[in-house]
């Protein structure tokens, strides 16, 4: 018991350390990152590497999704389409204009961010639910464009994307997505921990009170969409090079829904919840791949059960566990997730 207490205390003092504060990641998070970074040294199985990459990719997408739904409380139902915009843009820039992949991915994210800015403006006057529906319409439209601009995207035939690291194994992709995930998490976490994050939460929890406390809801809503879509575009760029073939299906509502489910199982408003959920859910589902429908049935059921019985998701379980342990050790409760 006392052992546990000292660990918890240590974690607390460590968390207050300048370095971790600056990084915006807890010591535990850094430890996980280091373990992940070292894992290719021990894992030979390419299939396992593939699973890790998929988990990181969907986890990163879920982080970006949660940045909107978990804080300003609007479901960006067209999220996958913004990811697709990033994917198509970077793929096309590399294959048509021979741009360097790094620049191309950056360009893709910027275009996604611009579109995110637009959808932010477009949904400004709408309440949560209707903003979600509008974002959905927007996403469907983007997908239709991708499917119909056949000259550019080859539509449903699929666009072949040049290989990013010719000759290299999966490890290279792994480190790239690990980097992207880390950057996504740290940047979004830094924003959330700043005043801007406070404003987001204020808007998400009580828009009227936020306005009358001086929060410019317009500005922050649009900013949130822009940033979230930027990262969706960035991860989309990675997706393009990783998968190698792009079809409009990547922008489908189904993909948004998958990310949404991860995010909710993980617990909205935690950022890391979706990432954790991805690591738990994606490998199981990959394993069940031959039983495609069954895994999605589980997905649907999980979503229904989480919504009814555990709307806080894994993050709430974690918070309760921490509280429980602290209670057992007679420490003062520190959790703020409620």
């Amino acid at each position, binding site marked *: 018991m006392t052992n546990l207490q000292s660990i918890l205390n240590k974690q607390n003092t460590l968390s207050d350390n300048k370095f971790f504060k600056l990084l915006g990641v807890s010591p535990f998070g850094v430890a996980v990152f280091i373990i992940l970074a070292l894992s290719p040294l021990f894992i030979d199985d390419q299939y396992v590497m593939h699973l890790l990459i998929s988990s990181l990719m969907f986890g990163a997408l879920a982080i970006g999704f949660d940045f909107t739904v978990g804080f300003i409380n609007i479901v960006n139902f067209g999220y996958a389409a913004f990811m697709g915009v990033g994917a198509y843009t970077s793929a096309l820039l590399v294959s048509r204009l021979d741009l360097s992949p790094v620049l191309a991915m950056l360009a893709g994210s910027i275009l996604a961010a611009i579109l995110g800015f637009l959808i932010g403006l477009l949904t400004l006057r709408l309440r949560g639910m209707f903003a979600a529906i509008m974002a959905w319409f927007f996403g469907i439209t983007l997908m239709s464009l991708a499917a119909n601009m056949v000259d550019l995207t080859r539509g449903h035939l699929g666009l072949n994307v040049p290989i990013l690291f010719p000759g290299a194994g999966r490890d290279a992709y792994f480190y790239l997505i690990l980097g992207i995930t880390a950057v996504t998490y740290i940047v979004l976490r830094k924003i959330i921990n700043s005043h801007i994050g406070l404003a987001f939460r204020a808007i998400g929890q009580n828009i009227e009170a936020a306005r009358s406390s001086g929060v410019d809801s317009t500005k922050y809503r649009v900013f949130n969409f822009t940033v979230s879509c930027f990262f969706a575009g960035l991860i989309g760029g990675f997706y393009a090079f990783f998968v190698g073939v792009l079809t409009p299906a990547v922008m489908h509502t189904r993909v948004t829904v998958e990310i949404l489910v991860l995010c909710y199982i993980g617990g909205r408003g935690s950022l890391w919840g979706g990432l954790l959920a991805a690591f738990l859910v994606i490998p199981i589902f990959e394993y069940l791949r031959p039983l495609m429908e069954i895994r999605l*049935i589980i997905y649907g*059921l999980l979503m229904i059960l989480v919504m009814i019985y555990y709307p806080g998701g894994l993050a709430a379980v974690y918070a309760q566990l921490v509280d429980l342990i602290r209670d057992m050790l007679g420490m003062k409760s520190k959790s703020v997730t409620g």
Partner: protein
Amino acid sequence: MELSAIGDILVAGLLRGGLFVLMALGLSLIFGVMNIPNFAHGEFYMLGAYFAYFSRTLLGLNPVLCIIMAALGGFIAGSIIEMTAFKALRKRSKGNWVMNSFLLTVGLSILLQNLAQATLGVRFMGISHYWQGSINILPNISVSIDRFAGFVIAMATVALFYLFLHKTKTGNSIRAVSEDEDGAMLVGIKMNKVHTLTFALGALLAAIAGAALLSINPAYPTMGLAPLYKSWFVVILVGMGNVWGTVIGGFIVGIVEAFSYYNLGAGWQDVVSLMVIITILALKPSGIFGKSVRGVWDR
């Protein structure tokens, strides 16, 4: 554009629109009475199509009976789902009901779609026709009887639905709940019953839409998404809880779609539709029939 082409577009648009009207009515009923933005509405459309398909191919029923079977199936599926999932959510949900129930319907949509896929597979299950042949509805425009019958069935359902809502005690109690929940409870209306009935009726309307068009759109697991999208479109366009508004809105969407299909080719309708809705919302943020949209838009 030639005059006959315009006629073609209008007819095609009206016929398509009939389907959107049915779907949108169910959606708007469920939202208006229960405050659930139903994302699984398309799955009831899908269920309806399957029910009709099996009634036709396995039981060999006549077309009208097939559609009635589909309606019954949708109704029963809807009531079971309401009594299990939504009742449980209603008991436990604290605040933010609209968003939580919406996400529940997202889960429901995934579940139903993949249950269908797991049990029935991904192949199209369609019939060549309910009724053979075609008829001339205008001197030089002919349509297949099935398409026309689908339209007639849709309109008859709308009319019956309207009469039910306005002329029966139960229908009145549903309208009462959507008008004022407290008032409804105070006159002795049992909310649980109305909620179950409402959800079941919404599902029934969607199922009829799916069944009526079986010969044109064969049944397959993911067929519900497009009609769902269109019915949301209608609802955003005209606002909630307005039967005649929904009818007009459904036709408008049908015609806009037929028009863009004719002029721009398949696939571009979505782009045109989005442009239309952005323009309308920019000009009149509460939808074309304005004021009846209560509590939907931010100040």
